[in-house]
């Protein structure tokens, strides 16, 4: 069992499992966010639940943060090890002819997503913590929709969101499908139904987030 923790295969399992956990989280996040387009009241209600339910706050949120840290830290460790495995580079390397750009550059798309998460945490999580624990403002179940719209007024911020979600889509395009190979379920070029589902999900969910950002940018009432 101790070998499991140290082995390269186990590290890939950790990447795959934490990645799949984040895929589930992203789906839940999207479902809540899309309500902001359909019904601001529902969005407020669900956001308030997520912001004040103790199970979400003190169980789900720490697990999510741990999952994020594990996924990013392991990704960086794996990339470091991979670079060490080829100390002298090829003078001529046709990597683009046998593997997709996204599969070869997960570290780039991943680091962009990490940088975006910094902004995202500053925008929403730091703000939320300030409201609840520093300013200790009274509970206001109606504030979330306006706070969301206020964040999407700036075209620069919306632009950063759009670019980040495009890169997230690229990351997911390879990552979601490839996680099943790492876990021994199917090869990346097999399992047509599941493969197509992962590709569709990788495009539709980030596209949905982009739509939400653009929708609020063009319809905000501030």
């Amino acid at each position, binding site marked *: *069992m101790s070998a499991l923790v140290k082995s*390269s*295969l186990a590290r890939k399992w950790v990447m795959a499992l934490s990645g799949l956990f984040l895929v589930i989280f992203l789906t839940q996040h999207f479902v809540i966010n899309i309500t902001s387009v359909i019904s601001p009241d529902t969005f407020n209600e669900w956001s308030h639940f997520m912001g004040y339910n103790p199970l979400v706050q003190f169980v789900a949120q720490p697990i999510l943060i741990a999952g994020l840290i594990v996924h990013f830290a392991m990704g960086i460790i794996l990339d470091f090890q*991979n670079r060490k*495995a080829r100390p002298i580079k090829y*003078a001529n390397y046709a990597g683009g002819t046998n593997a997709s750009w996204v599969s070869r550059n997960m570290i780039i798309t991943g680091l962009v997503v990490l940088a975006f998460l910094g902004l995202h945490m500053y925008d929403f999580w730091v703000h939320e913590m300030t409201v609840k624990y520093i300013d200790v403002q009274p509970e206001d179940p109606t504030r979330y929709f306006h706070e969301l719209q206020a964040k999407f007024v700036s075209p620069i911020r919306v632009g950063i969101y759009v670019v980040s979600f495009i890169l997230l889509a690229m990351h997911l395009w390879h990552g979601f499908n490839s996680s099943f*190979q790492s876990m021994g379920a199917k090869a990346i070029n097999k399992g047509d139904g599941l493969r197509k589902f992962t590709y569709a999900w990788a495009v539709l969910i980030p596209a949905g987030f982009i739509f939400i950002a653009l929708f609020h940018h063009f319809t905000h009432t501030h």
Partner: protein
Amino acid sequence: MKLTLKIWRQANANAKGKMVTYPLDGIDGDMSFLEMMDILNEELITKGEEPVEFDHDCREGICGSCNMMINGKPHGPQKLTTTCQLHMRKFNDGDTITIEPWRAAAFPVIKDLIVDRTAFDRIQQAGGYVSVNTSGNTQDANSIPIEKAKADEAFHSATCIGCGACVAACKNASAMLFTSAKVSQYSLLPQGEVEATTRVQNMVRQMDLEGFGNCTNTGACMIECPKGIKLENITRMNREYLKAETIG
């Protein structure tokens, strides 16, 4: 055919290597790539220069020795073909061809284009076998009925010639395709099932010890493998390893 060759030259394992350019004329399209290298070496010897060292043995695509990174691709531009089976008709008059050794920390250069691939031998020795009592009571392998599809799959995995093209092609210099093929060729058969747990554990441990990179599922290994070893082997090894380490 007139060519410009850019070849990695390195005097020994400790020397600093560099790319050296050689013009070469009179190459026929029907020559194999290695015959082209032979002609270059004859010219170099005639001029009193050191010939380019490269590994080769069978020259019929089964020994896995003729390892060269040709224009950025292991074994060159033709799919499912080793360097020795590659013909110069795949190139054009006036082409510049870059020839490099496999690049991986686990495959150190010995000289010029020759790398030390004994890391693969050590992975194989760690578990790529079936223990058989050879004291005279050995059972005939054919006495155990095996499903045709499984036998074919095991045989396909066993066609891996251990050339290292998978490592060379992989952006991480990972040896997952080789190791998983060697795990699969036994684990698919009843004779190999007995030692399946320790085999996958020991071979993966040795693979990690050799300093190969981690698999990031790009699929480049399968595309460049001259024997068309499939990614399903990697999936199978991932599955078997987890089973071995958790259930036993």
